[in-house]
């Protein structure tokens, strides 16, 4: 192998550069995401649409069957992708810029980010008549830059569940489910410590541990912001006093053994159901699982910091139409049925109870079996109150994807013992960099 050979090889490589350059760097047409020259027709077209979501396919089949009773000419092909891969699969699919999928499950706080990327079709005109149907927070989540991009099919809130036996063993009175008797985090911490001393494995367990969805209320209850300020909410604001204090409290939970390390969000329900946890903060989706519980349980309102605001997590999934959908009318009909008709066809027909995004839907929701028990009735009242009064949506910014990931890592580090102020500083500077491209 001498120099001549290497030069010859190099020129061969350069020749291939043409091949490489041709297949990269270029782009397909970006698909128009804002034209009003289509509308939801009065008669259904005959079409097939592809839908991408994270819910289990069997569960969704029941919903689709109900949809087909009202709209028999539209065939729905649903594809399920695990939650933690949904975002990257979506990126890849939309990147292909073809008609698959037509409709996809969109995480509500991500909607501004996805819309800014050009993933979605502008549906402002087509759904203008329906905006009064939904609760204010879910409606707002689908709007960005003055246009509407997604329709909400579910909402959420959080409750404080407790294991009656463990609370009594700790010598504490059972928490009240009344809104006016809402406990503070300080009280809950003390109770959790008592429970652990009395033998409980876990004092306090968060359902979505280390996730922004779950922990957002903590700094906000102390007066902090949702994490971003300024124009378009693209200036990080996670190093303020309330944020640091909230994280100090959070880190203490793990350091003192009140909360377990190593239980992931996917395992938290199972953990509580083993009966080894005194208090758990989780959404209403735990209720049906509790009907099979081998211990007595109760509910109370989501706590707040003493002297601070009452803030509860909220938000769930919406449906959005791909910017490259080739069956817009059919897709829109499906989306409308899922979110508007019958109080939201999705929430009405999905076997596992999903908190609907509309008042009409909520009325039906509270009729469900799962609310039949006494504790269930109390839960229903709490849910109703929180969704209407204390719910605060997550940070609505174009840079939400980066935000969620970076702050999630910071939360995880704090839980594992990192100094809260340092972790938040580091997160803040990562955010600065990540958001620089959007400003």
């Amino acid at each position, binding site marked *: 192998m001498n120099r001549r050979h290497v030069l010859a090889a190099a020129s061969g490589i350069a020749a291939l550069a043409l091949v490489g350059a041709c*297949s990269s760097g270029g782009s397909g047409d970006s698909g128009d995401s804002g034209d009003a020259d289509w509308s939801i027709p009065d008669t259904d077209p005959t079409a097939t649409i592809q839908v991408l979501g994270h819910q289990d396919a069997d569960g969704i089949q029941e919903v689709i069957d109900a949809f087909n009773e009202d709209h028999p000419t539209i065939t729905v092909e649903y594809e399920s992708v695990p939650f933690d891969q949904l975002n990257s699969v979506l*990126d890849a699919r939309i990147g292909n810029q073809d008609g698959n999928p037509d409709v996809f499950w969109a995480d509500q706080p991500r909607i501004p980010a996805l819309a800014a990327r050009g993933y979605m079709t502008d549906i402002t005109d087509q759904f203008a008549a329906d905006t009064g149907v939904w609760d204010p927070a879910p409606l707002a989540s689908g709007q960005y830059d003055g246009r509407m991009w997604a329709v909400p099919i579910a909402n959420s809130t959080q409750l404080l569940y407790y294991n009656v036996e463990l609370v009594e063993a700790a010598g504490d009175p059972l928490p009240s489910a009344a809104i006016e008797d809402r406990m503070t985090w300080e009280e809950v911490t003390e109770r959790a410590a008592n429970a652990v001393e009395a033998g409980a494995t876990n004092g306090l367990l968060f359902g979505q541990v280390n996730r922004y969805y779950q922990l957002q209320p903590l700094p906000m209850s102390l007066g902090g912001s949702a994490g971003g300020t300024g124009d378009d909410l693209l200036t990080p604001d996670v190093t303020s006093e309330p944020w640091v204090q909230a994280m100090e409290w959070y880190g203490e939970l793990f350091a003192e053994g009140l909360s377990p390390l190593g239980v992931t969000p996917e395992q938290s329900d199972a953990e509580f159901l083993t009966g080894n946890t005194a208090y758990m903060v989780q959404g209403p989706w735990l209720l049906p699982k509790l009907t099979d519980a081998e211990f007595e349980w109760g509910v109370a309102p989501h706590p707040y910091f003493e002297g601070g605001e009452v803030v509860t997590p909220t938000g769930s999934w919406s449906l959005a139409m791909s910017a490259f959908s080739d069956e817009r009318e059919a897709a829109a009909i499906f989306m409308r049925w899922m979110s508007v008709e019958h109080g939201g066809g999705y929430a009405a027909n999905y076997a596992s109870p999903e908190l609907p995004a509309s008042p009409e839907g909520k009325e039906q929701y509270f009729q469900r079996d799962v609310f039949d028990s006494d504790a269930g009735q109390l839960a229903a009242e709490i849910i109703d109150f929180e969704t209407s009064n204390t719910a605060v949506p997550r940070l609505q910014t174009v840079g939400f994807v980066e935000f969620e990931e970076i702050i999630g*890592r910071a939360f995880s580090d704090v839980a594992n013992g990192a100094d809260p102020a340092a972790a938040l500083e580091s997160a803040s500077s990562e955010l600065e960099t990540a958001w620089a491209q959007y400003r």
Partner: protein
Amino acid sequence: MSRSSSAVSAAPSGAQRRLGASPAPRRQLRRRKELFWAVVFLAPALVAIGSLRIAPTISAVVSSLYSGFPGGVRPPVFSGFDNYLDLWGNEAFRETVLRTVVFNVIINPLQVAIALLVAVLMTRRIAAPGLWRTLVFIPAVVPIVGSSIVWSIALRPDGPVNAIITALGGRPQPFLTSPDQALASIMLIASWIGIGYWMIFLISGLRAIPSEYYEAAKLDRAGPIRTFFQITIPLLKRPLLFVLVADTVANFVLFVPIQMLTNGGPQNSTTMQMFNAYRTTYTYSSKNLGAAEVVILTIIMLVFVALQFRLLRDDDRAAKGTS
């Protein structure tokens, strides 16, 4: 591994000269036929290498010269070296590069040195050398996914490693959950399966050293340490270089334990370049920036490899006094 067979090149031309009475046209025909078959035989491999190795490299370089809104749907805009300048100015990225380089400067010589020591041990006069060798090698067949699973459980705060440490009087260590120990734990995971692997190459290299050298050393009354440094190591240059380079290449793009176990944390202490490029491209959907990171990673790694070639070749020349 690379045993040169330079003796072979002499034969063909000799054979040709013997048949050399063939007239020119027949030789030309033969040559043309050989060329034809060469093209046919080489086509699949060249197309494969071209489209599967060269094309993406070019594609990455080109893509890194554009800037696009995350997501890749909005058409990217040509921006020259902006991505590189942005990365250069980004402290977190600089730290990632430094971390990757430091990691490799530590782990590669360490793994090779340990592999060499073990190889030497296994080629001494001991009982049942084949058995011990096999036992050391067995972890090498465990894929890195398997090694990650085993060690992440073994290194748990309540795991067996900490149990042994406390039994010996120490305090339980956080390992993968501590920003100070996580990277070292990753080194352990990679080394458990790597060392046995490289040991095999070094053993065959050691065995290839003719015993005359050792006998001469013995006559010179050279002790084991002097023999090792003045005879063994110089004669082991080729296999050592191969192992060092191959190990560096593998460790430079280390990805699996980071993605599976630590997600780059805690506090970015295990975020190395390969993982960072993956996160930028797939989690943040910033394809063009990710492409720039990939290009930088490749360049740095090639520099490392070239350096190693240089170092060992120069030493070689100096020691032997020939070129």
